[in-house]
C-alpha cells in the first residue's frame, strides 16, 4: 500500500471516529437518564442522536470504500 493511500485511510478513520465519539458520549447520557440523574426524555433524544451517528459512521466508511475502489486516494 502506497504512503498516500495510508494517509487517506488515516483521514477517513479520523472522520469515522467522530461519530463514534458522539455515540459514546450520548450513551453516557442515556445511562445517566436511566439512573435518574437527568430527565428521562433526554434519553430519547440521545438515542436518536446515537442512531444518526451510526448512519454518519456507516456513511463515512462507505465513502472510504468507494474512493479506495476508484483508486482516488486524494
Amino acid at each position, binding site marked *: 500500500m502506497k504512503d498516500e493511500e495510508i494517509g487517506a485511510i488515516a483521514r477517513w478513520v*479520523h472522520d469515522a*471516529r*467522530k461519530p463514534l*465519539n458522539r*455515540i*459514546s*458520549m*450520548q450513551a453516557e447520557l442515556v445511562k445517566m437518564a436511566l439512573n*435518574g440523574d437527568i430527565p*428521562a426524555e433526554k434519553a430519547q433524544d440521545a438515542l436518536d442522536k446515537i442512531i444518526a451517528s451510526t448512519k454518519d459512521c456507516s456513511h463515512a466508511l462507505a465513502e472510504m470504500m468507494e474512493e479506495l475502489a476508484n483508486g482516488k486516494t486524494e
Partner: protein
Amino acid sequence: MLTVLLVDDDPEFTEVACTIIEFLGHDILTAANLAEAREWLTKETFDHILLDFMLPDGSGVHLFDELDALPKRPKVTLITGHPSVRGIIKGLCGPNIDYLVKPIQREDIEAALTGKKEKPNSGGPRIKKYFGHLIGESAPMKELYKLIERVSRTSANVMLLGESGVGKEVVAESIHAASDVTGPYIATNCGAFSKELIGSELFGHEKGAFTGAVNRKEGVFEQAESGTLFLDEITEMPIDMQPNLLRVLENKVVIRVGGTKTIPVNCRVVSATNRKMEEIAESKVLREDIYFRLAVFPITIPPLRERKEDIPLLASQFITDFNQENGTRFEWEETQLDNLMTYDWPGNVRELRHFVHRAGIMSDPDKTDIELPKTIESPFAKKQSTSPALEAGRTIEDVEKELIYATLEKVNGNKTLAAEMLGISTKTLYNRLHAYGDLSKDES
C-alpha cells in the same frame, strides 16, 4: 468544584460533555476553536482545560505558550482522535500532560478532572447493581428483585416495609428505574413536615393561601406526574391529614391548598415505613382505608443480618465509592470482610456504609490497608469485637477475658448467671474481674 474550559469543534460532543461535566458538579465553558479559547482565557480563570488536539484554526498545542504565561496555569488534558498521537504529544509537551483518546467515556472525563490515572472498577470484578441501584446476590435479595420486576410492570401502589437503614429509598428508586414511565422520581419525607406544611408539600398551594405563601407552588403529586412519588415515613403523617391523602388516592386529583381547581394526577405512589405491618394495624398510625390504597403491593425489605453473604459485596462497593471520591486505593483483606460478616448491623446497610466511610477516613490515604476500629460501636447495638475471636498467638488470658466480658454483656452483668454459663464458680468469676481491675472492693 472546578472551572473547566472545553475546546472542541464538534458541537454535539461539547453539548453532551457539558451536561456530563455539569452533572459532575463543575462549571464549564466551551470554545469551538483556538481563537475562542484565547478569548475565554483573557476573561476567566480556569482550573482545567480539556483541549482537542485538532482544531479548525490549528493544533491545541499552540495554546500552550499562552497557558504558561497565565498567573495560574490550568491543568491540561488533550483530547485526541488517534491513539498514535499520544507519542507525538509526549514529545511535544513532556510526560506531564494528560490525554484522552476518543471515543471518550464519562469515567475518562471524571478521571481526568479528578487527576486519577486509573479507571474506576479497573481492579477487581465489577459488582452488579440490579436496576442500577441494588447490590446483593443472596436469596432474599433475589426474591426482592423478582417482586420489583413484577410490580414495575403494573402501576400498583407499593408499600415498602423494613427496618431503618435497609434501603427503602433505594428500592423505591429501583422500582422507578424498572418501570417504563416517562415522568420523574420525586421523593419526600412525610415525617419532616409540620402539620401545617405537609398539605402544601403534598398538594401544593396557591399564591396567598396562607401567610408566607408568596408564590404558587406545585405539590409533589403534581411534580411526579407520569412518574413515581416516594412518600417516606408514611406512618409519621398526622392522622388528621390522612383523609386528604385518601381523597387524592381515590379520585386521582389534587386541589392545591387555597385553590379550587382540581388537577388530575397520575403517578405511582411508593410509600415506606420502618414499622411492622402488625404494628401499623395495632397502633392506628395509619388509617385502614389509606393502608389498603397504599399497600396494594407490600414489599418487605430484608434486614442486613438476614443476608450476611452480601456484606462483602456491599463493603467492597462502598470502599470503591470512597476511593473514587477521595482518590485513594483502599482494598479489603479477606479476613476483614469475614469480620464484618460476624456483626449484626442493627442499623443495616446505612450503618455498614457509614462504618466503611469512617474506616476510610481513619486509614492512611497513601496505603491500601484499611484500618478498622477495634470494635464496631453503635448506640443502637451492643459492642462487638472486630478482632477475630480466636487467632493463633493470642494469650489464653486475653481470650478468657474477652469471653468473660462477652458473657457478662449477654446476661446484662448478672454475675451468678455468667459464672454458670462459663462453668466456673461465682468466686472465680469475681477473682478474675478483680484481676482485671474491674471490681471495686465493696462489690466483691
